[in-house]
């Protein structure tokens, strides 16, 4: 679907700027923009107050919650708006561990979880056990089965993402929840919510609105009815006892509007993106020597592809592609704040340097993808020539 406020079709060729990093942040959806502007004027009051303005804000907030619940296939009382996806991950995981403290302190997690999950797990004092993944980045139900059998006592929880944020591989959440039995599963769905329906089987989940075209500063924590979740932070006397702080009503409503639009357009968007990413996977492997295209080729997020080029510095590659008009991300050590390689690529056992993660927004065109494919081999060849390696 196109909107009046969508960017004009972009020029190709020299001087064009193409944004291919939607997995870091999707541009604001036009549906969210309209709602945000309207709600800024109507949703400023304290939604707990009983006066007219307060009731208006409350109505907007309740509406946002209902829309998000319906789009994600959950109950309204299972939705909590948080201040970010990271906040939703922290609250979600820590609250689940806290609610399960009588059952143990162990946390099993895939080795490829987002750092927000790993940081929260470490901070909680839980005993963390990272479970190995295969070359595509997938955790197998059999690995979970043997880890549960080996663990002396039952762990407090299992943390597993819906899809990997760096390589796009979908995780078998439902099968692993089946293996886990009574052990509840925390699912980080920040990379996938909006793109793909939430898989079944989780007890607590987290999502992030700016990944689906909502504004930044809105996360969603989902706690299944009947799951024991205990607030890991100081309580607050807000509408939703699981959250804290004054609700950002306009942003929550705009996030809901974006999600609604994205879900309505999902079939068309994802089939187009899936096809374009398949083309990138195939062409990169054909046109760039010594490249490793990683992640599951089929069972993956529709809009994201990652590959690594031998002998190439990730930062140099990002800079060179930016100069050519392509905004892309890299998970290479050389571009990260630490010098450690991406723990995701490391756990998969794939090349960690010369890494590129390309992700399509809902408006990325075939022409933009073709421009990238036409440029990449030349850029990689030039960088390799600089270090004396023409492969």
């Amino acid at each position, binding site marked *: 679907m196109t909107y009046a406020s969508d960017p004009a079709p972009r020029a190709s060729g020299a001087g064009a700027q193409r944004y291919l990093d939607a997995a870091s942040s999707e541009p604001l959806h036009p549906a969210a923009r309209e709602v945000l502007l309207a709600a800024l004027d109507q949703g400023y009051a304290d939604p707990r107050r009983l006066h007219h303005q307060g009731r208006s804000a409350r109505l907007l907030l309740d509406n946002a919650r209902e829309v998000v619940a319906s789009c994600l296939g959950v109950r309204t009382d299972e939705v909590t708006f948080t201040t970010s996806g990271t906040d939703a991950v922290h609250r979600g995981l820590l609250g689940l561990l806290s609610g399960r403290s009588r059952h143990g302190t162990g946390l099993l997690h895939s080795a490829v979880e987002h750092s927000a999950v790993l940081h929260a797990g470490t901070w909680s004092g839980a005993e963390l056990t990272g479970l190995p993944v295969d070359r595509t980045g997938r955790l197998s139900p059999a690995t979970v089965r043997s880890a549960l059998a080996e663990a002396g006592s039952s762990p407090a929880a299992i943390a597993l993402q819906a899809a990997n944020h760096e390589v796009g591989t979908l995780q078998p959440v439902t099968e692993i929840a089946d293996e886990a039995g009574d052990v509840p599963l925390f699912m980080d769905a920040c990379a996938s919510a909006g793109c793909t329906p939430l898989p079944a089987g989780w007890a607590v989940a987290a999502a992030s609105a700016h990944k689906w075209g909502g504004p930044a500063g809105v996360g969603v924590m989902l706690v299944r009815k009947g799951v024991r979740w205990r607030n890991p932070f100081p309580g607050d006397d807000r509408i939703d006892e699981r959250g804290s702080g004054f609700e950002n009503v306009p942003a929550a409503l705009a996030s809901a509007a974006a999600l609604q639009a994205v879900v309505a357009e999902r079939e068309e968007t994802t089939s187009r993106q899936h096809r374009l990413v398949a083309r990138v996977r195939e062409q990169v492997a054909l046109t760039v020597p010594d490249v*490793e295209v990683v992640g599951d080729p089929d069972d993956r997020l529709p809009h994201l592809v990652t590959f690594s080029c031998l002998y190439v*510095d990730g930062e140099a590659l990002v800079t060179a592609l930016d100069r050519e008009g392509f905004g892309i991300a890299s998970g290479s050590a050389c571009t990260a704040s630490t*010098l450690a*390689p991406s723990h995701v690529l*490391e756990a998969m056992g794939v090349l*960690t340097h010369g890494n590129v993660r390309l992700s399509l927004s809902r408006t990325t065109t075939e022409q933009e993808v073709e421009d990238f494919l036409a440029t990449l081999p030349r850029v990689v060849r030039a960088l390799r020539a600089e*270090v004396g*390696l023409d492969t």
Partner: protein
Amino acid sequence: MTAAEGAALELDCRGQRCPLPVIELGRRHTEVPVGGTIAVASTDVAARVDIPAWCRMRGQEYVGEETAPDGVPVFLVRRSR
């Protein structure tokens, strides 16, 4: 004698950041005959993943990891083509 001591070529990549150790390996592995062993001493933490990945991508054999007397990891590669 350790495998590293028996290597036909030793590459001292101490202090080099990723991807320099792999670049060094890519440039110089042809200095040993097919069947010969190359030892790469590297303080770069990415080398532990990237040297086996290089072997897989370039059709070479990854032999394993040893530790140099100064505690630095040494990665062993056998040239197979």
